[in-house]
């Protein structure tokens, strides 16, 4: 909210240093985002009379203007066309400096010397208007010989600041928090600021408007409120013989400084009263309201209202959250035709215009939550809705209306008057809240040592009334303009704010627990270290993907975002693969081809409807069984499925995981894994399977291998030539559920060991892992270590087979093995492998 300092001074005698005031406002939580000095640098600007306007040969956009500013006439070149000879305009002579530091110098344009500048409202920092020169006074007979008298104070040469009656001012741009509707007006900010500075605050009483006893309001208009839930209080007044005209300069200027555009005296008075006191009002042209009556009701679904901004808006169209009954408050005429959206925006049909003479003035209290829902539903926010949805003061309505009438009185003409009485339809509106406050509790919550008198001293200037209920309880009555303060804790916040957060003590709590990561959290860090140790940089790919991303890697699409910012971020990822391939593409496009990348992040499998229902019924379950996965892309020269498998092995060994197997696609060993993992190379990939107690408990916890060459081509990653290794594992499951090797230390033998090398020729369909398992089993306890040291395919071997060579190191704990024992173990292993896998010992 933009608040001029001069306006704040209507309510309390604030001192002059804007920076200090801004600091105080900040400390109250009324954060000053900008301090804008205005009206400065106008000291040199004077009023000038336009004496002569002439064209410049060869120039069709600028003209030669002679002005007289209290001395000899001077010549200037001007590009504006909105003034005439005889007009009074602001003139900045050569050497003057305008707001923003713009210095006027003598220029020559098209051969004409310009000895200064005629100024627009914007150039003077007085308004946003830059359409033309700020004409202070128009000659009655533009361009004619007749020159009317110049009004008082408009004598050429008069300093502009004197003519406008303005001094330098300061505008504070204040960010008002959502819970402070009282501070959404100048009076409210002044109240808080005055309390903090111990200055007297007063709310001026507006004068009663002239009233016509022969025109009772009830004879002119009717009001019917059909839905008191939406609108608990609705008042209406009728103003008669209103002359619609421009507002006085001071009102226009204040509105401009506050960021609102002056329109006409009626609309401006309504806006001014709202900025002044926080209560929005709505003026209707009474003669444009059918049957001169208003009906306040909830809209019928689909009903259309054309708002002031010319947009057709359909009511009650969609729900905006749990508990929303889609009731929107509309104001209808007496024929039940909607002419405005209550508390949000008026309609076009009854707008105030130059021909308006009778004004029907609405001032109401709308239910904040209803306005919030309607505003959200229509995606329509207005100055009024912003205030109503936070909670206006139902007791502030009458003052605001009187203030409006008072403001209007200055320009609405001699016959302007109010009809007799006010229509006031009141249901249940908020009343002052009584809150029991324990001073001891204040000190418990704040860690402070405040006395009761200090507490009362902070609260009473805010309009809170404190009475001692007992020695330990204060009975605090909270005014209706503070709907945010309804509980003891809310009062405690007020005390803290006015005591000053900086003045509260600081101490450190003692945690009774030892701070540490869980085992999973420690191991997750280790996973990242291990993978980084393998040369992979940690990346951060988006959780939200484009609509096509999953399909491109052969996966089912993920959960959709209903209101994505862009389609490219509209689907929750089910795998890290699409995002990571995108990163490889991005880098490849920048001639960065060789790299390994990894990420640890959440993926979002599709949940069943039962799971969602349970989560929404607050079972405590998460909506989606999110998995935390590690994804590693291996795209260095030479990287392939082997690199991925090797890294997988490193991780499994690093965490001493047991019972994890690689199962190639096509195996029916794992439920639901009939084919190769999606997006993966059909013959160079495998699922990472966590063995369970039985076959059905086996569970896939990841994939390892190479990205499908077709996918690489699709992404433009040179699928023909290049291989990209990919490893993705659900580390949350793996690290918390996979069995681990015993943490107990096994002693090592003191006796020498013997090595046995065995090479088997086996069918390609037999995995090395299976062979290893058989050997391990056959060799029994004598086996100290087992290593695959050679794989051979080609000459000398039948097609479809390869040779796998293992080195067994045998050793006993209690003796040196005899040659016979070694030979016996060797024979057992050969027999077992030949039998189990149809393998042949390679001689």
């Amino acid at each position, binding site marked *: 909210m933009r608040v001029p300092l001069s306006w704040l001074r209507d309510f309390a005698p604030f001192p002059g240093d804007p920076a200090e005031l801004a600091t105080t406002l900040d*400390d109250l*939580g009324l954060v000053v985002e900008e301090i804008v000095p205005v009206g400065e640098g106008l000291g040199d600007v004077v009023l000038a009379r336009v004496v002569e306007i002439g064209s410049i040969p060869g120039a069709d956009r600028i003209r030669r203007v002679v002005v007289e500013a209290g001395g000899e006439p001077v010549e200037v070149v001007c590009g504006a066309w909105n003034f005439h000879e005889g007009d009074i305009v602001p003139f900045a002579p050569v050497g003057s400096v305008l707001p923003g530091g713009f210095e006027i110098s003598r220029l020559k344009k098209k051969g004409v010397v310009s000895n200064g500048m005629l100024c627009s409202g914007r150039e003077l920092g007085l308004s946003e208007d830059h359409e033309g020169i700020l004409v202070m006074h128009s000659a009655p007979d533009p361009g004619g010989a007749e020159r009317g008298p110049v009004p008082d104070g408009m004598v050429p040469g008069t300093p502009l600041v004197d003519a406008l009656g303005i001094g330098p001012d300061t505008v504070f741009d204040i960010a008002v*928090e*959502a819970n402070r509707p009282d501070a959404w007006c100048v009076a409210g900010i002044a109240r808080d600021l005055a309390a903090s500075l111990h200055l007297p605050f007063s709310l001026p009483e507006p004068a009663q408007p002239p009233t016509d006893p022969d025109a009772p309001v009830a004879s002119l208009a009717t009001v019917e409120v059909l839905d008191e839930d939406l609108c608990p209080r609705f008042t209406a007044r009728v103003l008669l013989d209103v002359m619609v005209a421009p507002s006085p300069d001071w009102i226009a200027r204040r509105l401009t400084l506050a960021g609102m555009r002056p329109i006409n005296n009626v609309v401006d008075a309504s806006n001014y009263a709202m900025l002044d006191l926080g209560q929005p009002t709505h003026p209707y042209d009474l003669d444009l309201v059918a049957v001169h009556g208003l009906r306040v009701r909830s809209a019928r679904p689909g009903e259309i209202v054309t708002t002031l901004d010319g947009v057709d808006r359909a009511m009650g169209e969609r*729900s*905006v*959250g*749990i508990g929303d009954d889609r009731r929107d408050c509309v104001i209808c005429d007496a024929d039940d035709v909607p002419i405005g959206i209550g508390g949000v925006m008026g309609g076009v049909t009854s707008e105030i215009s130059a021909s308006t003479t009778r004004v029907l003035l609405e001032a109401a209290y709308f239910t904040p939550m209803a306005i*919030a829902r309607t505003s959200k539903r229509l995606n329509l926010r207005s100055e009024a809705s912003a205030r109503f949805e936070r909670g206006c003061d139902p007791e502030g309505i009458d003052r605001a209306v009187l203030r409006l009438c008072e403001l209007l009185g200055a320009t609405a003409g001699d016959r302007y008057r109010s009809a007799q009485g006010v229509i006031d339809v009141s249901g249940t509106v908020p009343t002052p809240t009584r809150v029991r406050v324990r001073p001891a509790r204040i000190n*418990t*919550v704040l*860690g*402070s040592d405040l006395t009761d008198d200090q507490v009362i001293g902070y609260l009473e200037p805010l309009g809170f009334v404190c009475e001692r209920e007992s020695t330990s309880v204060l009975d605090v009555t909270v005014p209706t303009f503070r709907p945010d303060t309804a509980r003891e804790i809310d009062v405690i916040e007020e005390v803290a*704010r006015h005591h000053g*957060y*900086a003045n*509260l*003590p*600081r101490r450190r*709590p*003692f*945690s*009774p*627990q030892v*701070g*540490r*990561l869980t085992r999973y959290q420690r191991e997750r860090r280790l996973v*990242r*270290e291990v993978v*980084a140790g*393998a*040369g*992979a*940089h*940690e*990346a951060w*790919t*988006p*959780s*939200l993907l484009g609509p096509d991303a999953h399909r491109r890697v052969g996966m089912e699409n993920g*959960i959709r*975002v*209903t209101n994505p*910012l862009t389609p490219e971020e509209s689907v*929750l990822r089910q795998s890290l693969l699409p995002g990571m391939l995108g990163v490889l593409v*991005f880098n490849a496009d*920048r001639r960065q081809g060789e*790299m390994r*990348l990894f990420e*640890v992040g*959440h993926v*979002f499998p599709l949940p069943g409807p039962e799971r*969602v229902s349970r*989560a*929404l019924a*607050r079972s*405590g379950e*998460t*909506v989606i069984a*999110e998995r935390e996965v590690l994804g590693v892309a291996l795209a260095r020269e030479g990287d392939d499925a082997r690199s991925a498998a090797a890294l997988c092995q490193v991780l499994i060994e690093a965490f001493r995981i047991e019972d994890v197997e690689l199962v190639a696609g096509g195996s029916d060993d794992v439920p639901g894994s009939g084919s190769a993992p999606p997006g993966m190379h059909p013959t160079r990939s495998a699922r990472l399977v966590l063995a369970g107690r039985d076959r059905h408990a086996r569970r896939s916890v990841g994939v390892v291998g190479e990205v499908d060459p077709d996918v690489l081509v699709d992404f433009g990653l040179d699928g023909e030539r290049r291989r990209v290794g990919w490893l993705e594992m659900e580390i949350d499951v793996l690290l918390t559920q996979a069995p681990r090797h015993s943490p107990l230390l096994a002693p090592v033998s003191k006796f020498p060991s013997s090595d046995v090398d065995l090479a088997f020729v086996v069918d390609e369909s037999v995995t090395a892992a299976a062979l290893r398992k058989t050997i391990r089993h056959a060799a029994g306890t004598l086996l100290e270590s087992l290593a695959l040291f050679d794989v051979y395919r080609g000459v000398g071997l039948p097609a479809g087979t390869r040779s796998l060579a293992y080195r067994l190191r045998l050793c006993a704990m209690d003796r040196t093995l005899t040659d016979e024992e070694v030979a016996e173990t060797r024979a057992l292993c050969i027999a077992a492998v030949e039998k189990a896998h149809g393998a042949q010992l390679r001689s």
Partner: protein
Amino acid sequence: MTPPPAAGGEPGSHPIDPEELVSSAVDRLETITTVAALDEAQTDLVGKRSELARAHQGLVSLEPDERPEVGRRLNEARRRIESLIGDRRRELEGGERAARLQADRLDLTEVIAPPLRGRLHIVERTRDELEDVFIGMGFAVAEGPEAETDWYNFEALHMPPAHPARGMWDTLYLDLGGPETVMLRTHTSPVQIRLMEAQGPPIYAVMPGKCYRRDTPDARHIPTFHQIEGLVVDRGISFADLAGTIETFTTAYFGPDIHSRLRPSYFPFTEPSAEYEVTCTICKGNGCRTCSHTGWIELGGCGMVDPAVFAAVGIDAEEWTGFAFGFGIDRCAQMRHEIPDMRVFFDNDVRVLRQI
């Protein structure tokens, strides 16, 4: 002067002059260029069948009164020859090692190898560091899902449906359940609720994680970002504990010159609420462009847990009080590493990833 008696030898052999043995050894050793040849010469000069050895054996044939003198001269000769051999050996071995090493020379700067180690992401490392500071203060680290229900993201946090404060966060909703009932969490605060539901007080925990908002990215805001949130619930916890905790963290993480201050603010789930600012890390509080010449930079929000939040999770707000705070991990990383534009995180340009 009579020549010294010749050293003994085989009876009847020529007497051997020890000095002559020494000088002939000198001549022989001078011609030797390899260690192998030296080994051979050593055998010849001092071995069992050398002249010297024979001279020793010949001592027995000398007169008893001559033996000591001749024996002494022979021993002296042996000592000198062995010393000469040792010198020569060291000389030759040194030369051979030098030649071998020379042949083995390697310029270590000519090594061709990919970077052996990758780098952890700057935001993830920042998260680790922040966690570690709080762990040192006795906090646990709690985590939760990124997709949440309305209850956890809003309602339990004292924001009933359509509460205007919900507008403080632009929410991305998921196509699950009813309209606007499931969303990507807009803050890490839902983890507070889950933690309080799952475990009673006392609680001392921080909750880092990814959050999502429907914001158009700019230099300082990205729609997917990382937040770390803290929650303390215990008996007698006050605003003073909050301010002290924030200050302890600030100096521990940013350094002793950086301090904190709290200013009133509004969050539906805390009361009193505060905005948390730290000394500008660029100018150390002197005022600069980064901090708009205020000397302070806003980092996050905090406050005392609102009793309505305790009510939502069934904690007695009379017995227990608590505070919560939260701020951006990315923002900390941005400040510490002077990252001009956060959007750089989207690209994962490897030239950036490997840099910091």
